[in-house]
């Protein structure tokens, strides 16, 4: 059994929170550059500002966006590894609180009814998976309110085809394209159960934008859906243009024969995420 000191987890998680909020993921940066080349003058100006924003954020140590989000963690824990010194959940929470404090990141979590801010962005939202092996893989995403607010879960009719999936996703984007920070990335959770679909929609977006799905049918769906969303024509910031969507990622799972859950996660352009393997 391999041992990892909890202190190492705390420090890594703190650094991840700061890095995710200050560094545009490289695949998103590449996607901005590709999209900028085929934009209208207004669209090109929007991408110029977003690229300048990323450069300044990294250089000055300011967050990319003032909404530093809820801290969401996807953890894959090897069966042959243990964390020594405190519980893994506690270590991740301590690291997150430290990162948000030391990185001058905005703390946004509050009581759902009194709306009183908790002051330290706690608790982290943590999803654990047990996997074979002796490593600990942690992916952190910062989820802003606009992205979470725009996203939807639906229970489609059980025999719906891929066109029905595409229609629902396109209509979701059409509904919110003037409120989210477009160009968006779309994560689709198809199948599973009601809650698994939502989780998979977020998980799907952990794949880089330029990563092609290994299943040709899913790769095809990702491509045609991205093209369909871009035909909406609302573009960067909803002011018109060719890039409403930077990319679509799908994660499908078996479901009950009498159901077809579908979740659409509408991620803002910065798609903040960072990964470490311990």
């Amino acid at each position, binding site marked *: 059994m391999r041992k990892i000191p909890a202190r190492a987890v705390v420090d890594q998680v703190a650094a991840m929170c700061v890095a995710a909020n200050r560094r545009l993921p490289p695949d998103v940066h590449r996607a901005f550059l590709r999209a900028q080349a085929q934009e209208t*003058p*207004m669209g090109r*100006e*929007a991408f110029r*500002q*977003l690229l*300048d*924003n*990323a450069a*300044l*954020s990294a250089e*000055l*140590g*300011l*967050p*990319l*966006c*003032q*909404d*530093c989000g809820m801290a969401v963690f996807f953890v894959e824990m090897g069966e042959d590894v243990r964390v020594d010194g405190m519980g893994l959940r506690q270590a991740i929470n301590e690291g997150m609180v430290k990162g948000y404090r030391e990185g*001058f*990141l*905005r703390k946004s979590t509050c009581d759902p009814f009194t709306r009183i801010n908790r002051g330290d962005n706690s608790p982290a939202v943590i999803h654990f998976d047990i996997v074979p092996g002796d490593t600990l893989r942690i992916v952190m995403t910062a989820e802003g309110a*606009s992205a979470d607010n725009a996203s939807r879960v639906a229970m489609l009719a059980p025999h719906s085809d891929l066109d029905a999936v*595409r*229609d629902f996703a*396109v*209509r979701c*984007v*059409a509904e919110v*394209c*003037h*409120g*989210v*920070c477009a160009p968006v990335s779309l994560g689709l959770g198809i199948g599973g159960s009601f809650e698994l679909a939502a989780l998979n929609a977020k998980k799907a977006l952990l794949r880089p934008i330029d990563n092609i799905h290994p299943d040709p049918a899913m790769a095809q769906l990702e491509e045609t859906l991205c093209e*369909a*969303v871009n*035909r*909406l*024509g*609302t*573009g960067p*910031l*909803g*002011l*018109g243009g060719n890039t409403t969507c930077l990319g679509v990622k799908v994660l499908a799972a078996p479901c009950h024969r009498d159901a077809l859950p579908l979740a659409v996660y509408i991620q*803002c*352009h*910065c798609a903040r995420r960072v990964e470490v393997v311990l």
Partner: protein
Amino acid sequence: MRTRALSTPLSAEDAAGLRAGDVLYLTGTLYTAREEAHQRLLDDLDAGLPEPFPLEGAVIYYVGPSPMTQHRPIGAAGPSSASRMDPYAPRLHQLGVRASIGKGRRLPLMRAALMEHGGVYLGATGGAGALLSLCIRQVRLAAYPELGPEAVYALDVAEFPLVVLQDCHGADMHVAPNLEAALSG
């Protein structure tokens, strides 16, 4: 794409000369406010208290910045979703406020309010909090310190980059989604 440069406070003539789609570089003072500050301001004015800052020609910035760092007057400072302020904004325009800065589309009632009072709705780039922060030179507390991060701050800005999203002539820069094109093929 026309480009304009203006200073605050914005006059009625300034606003009347702006058209949806214009790029605007704004210099002067912006007042920050989100829901709580709007509620408090209108409650105080209803109670007969004086204006906490000059409303005539004022520009309100819907922003909840990240904490300031050691070497900067403010953290990242990009726009909040503007529609959250729509229950309050028409009355502020009636009281002299000339413009607001936010992101996203607003409720239909804002079109009438802007036309009636000669106001404009300005968009800053959503998510460009670090870039916009650099245009903010100084930050002063203007009102309601008890609201903490939601208090009203006066931001001295230089050439703050904006797009006129809605003008006082009824035009809106947002492009309607073309569902027919998206769902065909």
